[in-house]
Structures are given as C-alpha cells and as structure tokens.
C-alpha cells in the first residue's frame, strides 16, 4: 500500500489528470480511479471488520448474514451488533473529511482543519459544562458539544486574526487554546460528580465502541439533513480562485462562505456529539485525497471516501490489535501525528 502510494504521488500530476468526459461534466481520470479504489477498499475492509470479533466469521458468512431474510444468531451479531459500529466509522469518517476539506479550502491552508483550531477540545468543554449544569443525557451532551465547539472555533479565529489570517498563527493559537481548554476540562472532570465524570470521560476519549442503532440513526439523520450544503461546493471551487475572481464569476462571496462554514461546522459538530472528539481525520483525509488524486484543489468526494477508509481502519486497529479495546481517538491521534511528521519532512525535502 505504501509503496503504491509513494509511486502514485511521485507521478507528474499533469500527465495523469487529463480530463475525460463523464456523466454530468468533466472529471479528472486519476481522481475517479482513486475514488473508485477507495470505495472498493472501504467495502472490503467493512466486510472484514464485520467478520472480526469473539465470533470470527468468513467474508462469505458476513455477506450471507447481511442479506439473509431469516433472523439467525449470526445475522443478529452482524446486523445488530457489528454493523452500527462499522457504518458509524464509514459515515462519520466521511463527514469529518468533508468538513476538513471545506475548512482547508476556505483557509487555503492544510492546517486549517477543525481539530487543529481546537474544535474538539472545545466541544468536550461544552459537553462537560452541559452535563454538570443541565444534567446527564444525550441531548444536553450534544447541545453542549455543539455550542462549545462553535464558541471555541470563533474565539480561535478571532485571536489568530490580526491584519489578515496566517496559517502559522492559527495553528499556534489553536495549540494554546487547546492546552488551556484541556486544563479546564480536567478541572471540570475532577470537580464533577462521579456519574457525570464517567459518562463524560468515556465520550471524551472519542470512541465508536458504544455505537448501536439507537445512537447511530439520529446522527445519520442529522447528517442527511445537512446534505444540501453540498450544493455550495461549486461556489467553494470559485472561492479557491480568490474572492475577487469568485465575485467576478457571479458568486455572492460572503454568503457562500458563511454557508460553507456553517455546513462544515455542523458536520463536525454532529459527529463529535455522537462519538466524542476524534482528531486528525479532518486534517489528514483531504490532504491524502488531494495527493492521491493529484488535483490542484481538494476533492470533496475523494476526501469523504478516504476519510471513511481512514476512520474504519483506525477503528479496526483500536478494536483488535491491542489486548483491550482502546478508544479510536487515541489511534487517530497517533496516526495523524505520524502523518503530520511525514508531511513536514516531505515539505522540507522539497525545498532543498
């Protein structure tokens, strides 16, 4: 996989991205290949993931159980116990990646993703405050996470804004605000009553292990409600050319930008409310997708497919490689950290 990846990224993008006609428009050929490949890989991995566990199943058994009409034991295991978690990983990974792709396109910076600017930690703070003030429950947790995350994103942007926005300042302000909020979170956790602290800390590690149909469906419905936001993607492409060019092409710049930000924030907020903060998917997936597709801008659909693949693989690692089931958030932090390091090394090499 890695050799193939390196091979692909070393290709000259110009030779590979000749446009070919496709239904509804012109799409670069390499982007399509990458998208199809990542969808197939995700499907294969999902079947493997459904087979893993205390009751190991072969891929054939999994597929049979998925489409079986009678309700045998294997069907229950696959459909009711394992499928929500796998589906959750795929859907949430895709949503996080789309959100990251929009943020990164709007800020024109690979680091401008919601996890870097402290959204997740802020969501945790909001959830903790809501749990202590309003009381335990899924509604107060989700609301708190939403408000906390939004407020943090706004504060970080305002603090980092000074005669224009610069990537480095954004990330360092994000690091600082994250460090502060982590302190606040620990303070709240230490003060909180035991049941609140328990509920909050399970959620706060970022885990898919508690996914079932009851928790998955509301989140998926909420995400589906947001889907019309994708209609703004053509405007995003125009905005990438610069505000003036976009305005010249007839785009209402401020309104499109606001709509896109709201869409992206809503996606990441819904996911965070459901699973807890899962870092780095929004950061890494769009960049990986862009590199694989060799495109100039960040491909939205490609990012979503790669994000689904990333989160599903991370959850498999979290679930099955260690003696205990660690939260997937820990795995994505480690993978994302490695990814950031290689990004830095590559960037440095290119400059020499």
């Amino acid at each position, binding site marked *: 996989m890695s050799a193939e990846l390196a091979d692909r990224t070393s290709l000259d993008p110009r030779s590979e991205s000749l446009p070919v006609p496709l239904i509804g428009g012109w799409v670069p050929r390499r982007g399509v290949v990458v998208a199809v490949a990542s969808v197939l890989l995700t499907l294969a991995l999902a079947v493997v993931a459904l087979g893993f566990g205390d009751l190991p199943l072969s891929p054939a058994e999994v597929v049979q159980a998925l489409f079986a009409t009678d309700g045998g034991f294997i069907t229950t295991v696959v459909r009711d116990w394992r499928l929500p978690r796998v589906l959750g990983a795929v859907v949430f990974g895709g949503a996080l990646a789309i959100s990251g792709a929009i943020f990164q396109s709007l800020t024109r910076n690979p680091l401008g993703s919601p996890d870097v600017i402290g959204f997740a930690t802020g969501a945790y703070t909001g959830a903790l405050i809501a749990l202590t003030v309003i009381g335990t429950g899924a509604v107060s947790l989700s609301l708190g996470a939403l408000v906390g995350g939004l407020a943090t994103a706004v504060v970080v942007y305002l603090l980092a804004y000074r005669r224009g926005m610069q990537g480095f300042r954004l990330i360092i302000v994000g*690091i*600082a605000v994250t*460090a*502060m909020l982590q302190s606040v979170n620990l303070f709240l956790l230490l003060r909180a009553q035991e049941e609140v602290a328990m509920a909050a800390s399970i959620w706060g590690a970022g885990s898919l292990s508690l996914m079932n149909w009851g928790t998955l469906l509301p989140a998926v419905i909420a995400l589906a409600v947001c889907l019309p936001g994708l209609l703004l993607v053509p405007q995003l492409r125009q905005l990438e050319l610069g505000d003036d060019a976009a305005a010249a092409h007839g785009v209402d710049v401020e309104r499109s930008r606001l709509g896109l930000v709201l869409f992206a924030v809503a996606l990441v907020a819904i996911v965070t409310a459901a699973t807890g903060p899962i870092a780095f998917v929004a950061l890494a997936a769009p960049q990986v997708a862009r590199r694989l597709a060799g495109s100039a801008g960040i491909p939205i659909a490609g990012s979503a497919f790669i994000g689904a693949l990333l989160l599903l693989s991370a959850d498999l690692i979290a679930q099955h490689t*260690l003696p205990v089931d660690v939260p997937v958030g820990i795995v994505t932090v480690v993978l994302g950290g490695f990814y950031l*390091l290689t990004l*830095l090394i590559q960037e440095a090499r290119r400059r020499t």
Partner: protein
Amino acid sequence: MVLLVALAAAVLASLAVGTRAIPPAEVLQILLGNDTGANASVINDLRVPRTLIGLVAGAALGVSGALIQAVTRNPLADPGILGVNAGAAFAMAIGTGLAGVTGSFGTLALAYAGAFGASVLVYAIGSLGADGGSPVRLILAGVALGAVLAGITSAIVLTDRARFAGMTAWQSGSLLDRDVGLLTWAGPLVLLGLGVALAIGSSLNAIALGDDLASALGARVVRTRVFAVLAVMLLAGSATALAGPISFVGLMVPHAVRWIVGPDQRWIIAHSVLAAPVLLLLADVAGRVVMPPGELPAGIVTALIGAPVLIVLVRRRRASEL
C-alpha cells in the same frame, strides 16, 4: 534580589497553604525544630518534600526552556511544546510497563533517554530543509511527535490500569505524592545541568547572532549545541521524572526574565533558576486552594496561565520572526 525574596515567599506559601493551613510563624518554628505537634509531621513528611521537588523541577524546567529558546533561536520553544517531556513520559511508560524497570535510577535513566531521543528527533525533523528549519516547523514537529508519543503512552496506560494506577496522576503533572527518593539522583544531575547551562551562556550569546557570526567570534557552535542538548536532556528529563510532563513553565519564565534583564543569556539563565520555581510553587499552591478538598495538578495550572502567554507572543511577533 527581588527574586530571592519572591522565592522565599513562594517556599513559605508552599509550606503553609493547604487543606490544613498552618500559620507562617509556626512553619518557621517547625523548620527550626522547635515544635513537634501534629503540624510538624504535615510539614516535614508532606510539604517539605513537595516543596523541594517543586524547587528542583521548576529550576530545571525554566533553564531548559531558556536553553532551547537560545539554541533554536525560537521564542516559542518549550520542553513541553516541543515534545521533550512527552518523550520522557513515553520512555518511562514503555520501560516500567513493558520492560519492568523499577527503582529511582532506572526511572531516571529512562526519562533521560526519552527526553534525549525526543529532542534530537524533533530538532532533526524541524531543521530539515534549505533554510535550516523555521521556528514554526520546529513547533509543528514537536506538537506532532508529542501527540504520537502521548497517544501511545495513554494506550499503554489503558492496557493495564492496575499497574499504571499512579501513572494517570503522574501524566497530568502534579507535585503531590512524588517519589522523593528520586531527588538523591536527580538533584545532583540537575545541578550538573544548571552548571553546564551557565558555562555555555556566553557562547549562547554569540549563537544568538547567527551561526556564521558566532564562529567568526570564536564560539564553537557545534560543541555549544551538543552541550546545550545534553543539559536540556538532564534538566527536562529530571523535571519530568520528578513531577510529570509540565508545559509552559519553560516558555513563560525566560520571556518574563528577558523583559527584566535584557538579552544576555547568562543573566537569563541565572534568573530563570530562581524565577521558574516561584512560578511552579505558586501554581502548585493555587492548585491546592482552588477547589478544596481536592487538588488541581500544578501542570494544569501552568497550562492555564501559560497558554495565554503563548497567544500574546504569537500575536506580538512579526511573521518573519516566526
């Protein structure tokens, strides 16, 4: 002079304040051995060791921050932000958890190895490239490596909660219930690190002017760097082994000191030795008072005060400097 008074006041506060408040006058009596009441054991067995650890760890953190900032010419450097403390914590988790290392000396050796490995790695990644690495790249490398190491550390801790019962408290950077036995090894090594730091102070002044100019002035750039990294390893490693990974002390103190004494590294280092323990001890005291009867770890308090300082710094500096 003012710093010495402040340090004395901080030490006194650290001895007097707590769940059981003891008046300063009585504290002095107990220290002189004139009082052997119930408060004496509180002072002698709990608060004196805690204060000693705060003093040593604080001085080590402050000076290692000053050294890193001088060597990398990076105003935002800090052993916590650059992942050095995370490296020490990681090595200690691996060593105690997987290899079964025990004892003060083994723990310290692990912390040094981890701190050394992390600082070399971060510096190597951060300084790749034609321009010799920008301060921002160094910070990103540190944060990324820190995230990786901290993630693996918490995964290790999660796999065996019983064995790591003390580790979770240690991870948040607290002065409470520390292994005082470590001081017998760490104390002298911290002193050694401080000595090295002071000895290379004048060379660090030359390095501040740029590598070329520094060697033209007769400073041995490479040798100074090596000594500086070794001193950082001793200082940051000891502090982490003593008090857990504590961030932002190494960032804040050298800046505050620089505003007062100017850019001479020798003065910055000498004053950081005194100023950093003041900050750490006061943070510890604040952590004891803020939510009785529980305590907030000192590392949490320093992050709460230190993060805004980082924001102010990054907003103040011009883009070219960063």
